[in-house]
């Protein structure tokens, strides 16, 4: 019904946090910091945070389209068809608190796994595998 709003909200929060961290660090935007990352060999945390925002925005955008497809999101007020009826609104809120929250949790968990994998790769010796062949 409107489950995508939960990860979309998390995306907004994560984007604000990323931007404020970039401002605080006085660093270049995360997307443009590949040179910096190459020099230090370890990615800055703002760039890793960008992975989370990318996943959340990407998923939310395509899910929003699905909701438009199913007629659950409309281009006129109140934009959510379920919001015009109290019973449907209660069902929508229930879905957001179960499915929506689970979506946000799963995407965040995937990001956490990505952080772990990135940490392992960053700490891997530079000459790996090829010399053994």
């Amino acid at each position, binding site marked *: 019904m409107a*489950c*995508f709003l939960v*990860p979309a909200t998390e995306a907004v929060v994560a984007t604000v946090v990323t931007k404020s961290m970039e401002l605080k660090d006085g660093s270049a935007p995360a997307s443009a910091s590949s040179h910096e990352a190459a020099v230090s060999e370890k990615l800055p945390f703002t760039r890793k945070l960008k*992975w989370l925002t*990318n*996943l*959340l*925005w*990407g*998923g*939310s*955008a*395509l*899910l929003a*389209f*699905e909701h438009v*497809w199913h007629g659950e999101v409309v281009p006129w007020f109140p934009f959510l068809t379920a919001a015009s009826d109290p019973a449907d609104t209660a069902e929508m809120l229930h879905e957001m608190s*179960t*499915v929506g929250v*689970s*979506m946000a949790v*799963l*995407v965040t968990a*995937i990001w956490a796994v990505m952080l772990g994998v990135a940490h392992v790769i960053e700490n891997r010796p530079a000459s790996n595998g090829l010399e053994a062949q």
Partner: protein
Amino acid sequence: MTLLVTVFAAVVSTVIWYQSTAAREMKVGVLCWLFWGASAMWLVDAIFEYAELQAEYFTPAAADLLNDLFLGLSVIALALIIWLVYVLFKDPKGVIKAALMRKRA
């Protein structure tokens, strides 16, 4: 079906991104984020639907299957359009900038 179509799109775009320097330059990574993000979210949707329908979840009506396939393909089209707009805006190869300069000259 939509989940399946999106997962295939995510895997294909990731393999292309990993294999080709030209693809990375062409910002194929944007497609990976879009498809993987949506796949994760639709997986949750599928799990909740499975919990509700049980085995019936795997035997959808033909009309529902077709509609979901149509939706999946439309989602891919939308993602490709988002990617194309992003690539044209970022202009990684400077093609648009060069074309604009040529017109001005």
